[in-house]
């Protein structure tokens, strides 16, 4: 690999890593902080993408679709929490696994009933449709850069929310001892509802933003599910920076794995995870 293509591949890896972080960001909240093992996270991503598709076809404008989609996703998340998850906090964590597995099935089928099983696309919004030429044959889509920028903003925002705000402290406290938080006069239920809704909205937002480049198709949720978990765990559960670093590591491992060791490309991500966790059994950055 010559230096120039190495450089471009690194750029690809960086960008892919950031995209993965975008998908995993909602999971950092819901799984990493609240401790809910949410297998339906991928479905929220899928729902976001389909929302973007449905709303874009309805309104004709991608940005309007996002502006409408976010409150919808928030409301959806809050409703789910109130109806289902709120009843499970005191139960064994594994029962959440069962619940969210059921939800995956429901969401996929409902999607199929409402919107069919076709593959759809959303055009990249006009103003970001350009590409930046890199060499004589290759150019780099501006929209991908926009997504990267959003990722970085999100990472900073999440870090700030979790580590620097009182809300973040309450969430973390609640994941450890709900009764105690309540005894301090804090309505943990409302906080959890908010945070869960936020997590759903983040996943959906990731789906919406990714829709123009990844297209919208059945099963897109399950593709990102496992990798999101991998990222949150490698990074160290509860750590936003950890997740970001992990996403970048996976981005690089995957990108260069595909090019250099195509026969083992599928294995590499998991090899990386195993190695990282054996080296640091609590992830790259521990809690905190």
């Amino acid at each position, binding site marked *: 690999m010559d230096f120039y293509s190495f450089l471009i591949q690194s750029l690809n890896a960086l960008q892919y890593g950031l995209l993965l972080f975008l998908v995993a960001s909602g999971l950092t909240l819901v799984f990493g902080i609240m401790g809910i093992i949410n297998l339906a996270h991928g479905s929220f991503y899928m729902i976001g993408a389909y929302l973007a598709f449905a709303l874009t076809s309805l309104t004709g404008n991608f940005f309007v679709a996002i502006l409408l989609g976010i409150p919808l996703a928030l409301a959806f998340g809050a409703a789910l929490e109130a109806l289902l998850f709120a009843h499970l906090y005191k139960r064994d964590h594994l029962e959440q696994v069962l619940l969210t597995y059921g939800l995956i099935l429901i969401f996929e089928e409902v999607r199929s009933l409402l919107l069919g099983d076709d593959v759809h696309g959303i055009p990249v919004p006009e103003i970001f449709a350009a590409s930046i030429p890199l060499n004589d044959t290759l150019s780099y889509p501006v929209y991908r850069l926009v997504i990267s920028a959003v990722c970085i903003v999100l990472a900073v925002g999440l870090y700030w929310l979790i580590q620097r705000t*009182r809300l973040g*402290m*309450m969430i*973390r*406290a609640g*994941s*450890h*001892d709900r*009764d*105690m*938080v*309540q*005894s*301090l*006069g*804090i*309505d*943990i*239920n409302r906080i959890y509802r908010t945070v869960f809704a936020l997590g759903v909205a983040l996943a959906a937002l990731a789906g919406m933003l990714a829709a123009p480049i990844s297209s919208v198709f059945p099963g897109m949720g399950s593709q990102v599910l496992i990798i999101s978990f991998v990222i949150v765990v490698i990074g160290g559960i*509860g750590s936003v920076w950890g997740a970001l670093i992990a996403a970048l590591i996976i981005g690089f491992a995957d990108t260069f794995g595909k090019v250099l060791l195509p026969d083992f490309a599928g294995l590499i991500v998991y090899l990386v995870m195993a190695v990282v966790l054996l080296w640091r059994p609590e992830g790259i950055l521990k*809690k*905190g």
Partner: protein
Amino acid sequence: MSEVLLEAKQLHTYYGSSHILHGVDFHINKGEALGLMGRNGMGKTTLIRSMMGLVKPRHGEVKVRGDAMTGAPTHRIARQGIAYVPEGRGIFPNLSVKENLLMAARPGVDGQRNWTFERVLETFPRLGERLTNGGGQLSGGEQQMLTIGRALMTNPDLMILDEATEGLAPLIAREIWRIVREIGKSGIATVIVDKNHAAVTSITHRSVILVKGQVVFDGDSEVLRNNQALIQQHLGV
């Protein structure tokens, strides 16, 4: 002065099928210091948890400032100016000392902000030295200070201290008693559960003794302190 802050009437509480509280009547007035005593397993903690809404009593009534709040969510009860320092501490190990304190900060019911972060650190200088440590990394006694400090951050009108001096060095324990007394003087009511009867009876106005989920004594602490037979019988010394 004799406005009732927190009141329980004929409380019956069960854990599953075991009947723990058998019709307990209990109240605490504004500004009052009250000792709640009894041997291990007599139901002191259960009474407190029932009043805080952490367990649902099967019969009976809980009133806060005269309003019925039986079975109300804990945070609503706490928001009426009641701070609870549970036995076994309940610090958040995944939060730093500073975060443990800050997350609880809240003005009191009347909007008073007597207890600030700075004042808590003044009261417990040891905590100031360990601000960035995780709560789980503190020594046992430091954790105890942290929970008390955290409760004070909510600027309560009533502090419930369940075994607050457990694991504290004599000097610090004395310091805690001093603070409790001071808290009392500043108008905050206190319910104190502690095995050190001498200390409890000497700083409280009133004492309540529970035996097997029933109130067997409710009266002046002075009286109790001077009645060694009663202490012997119900608390065993």
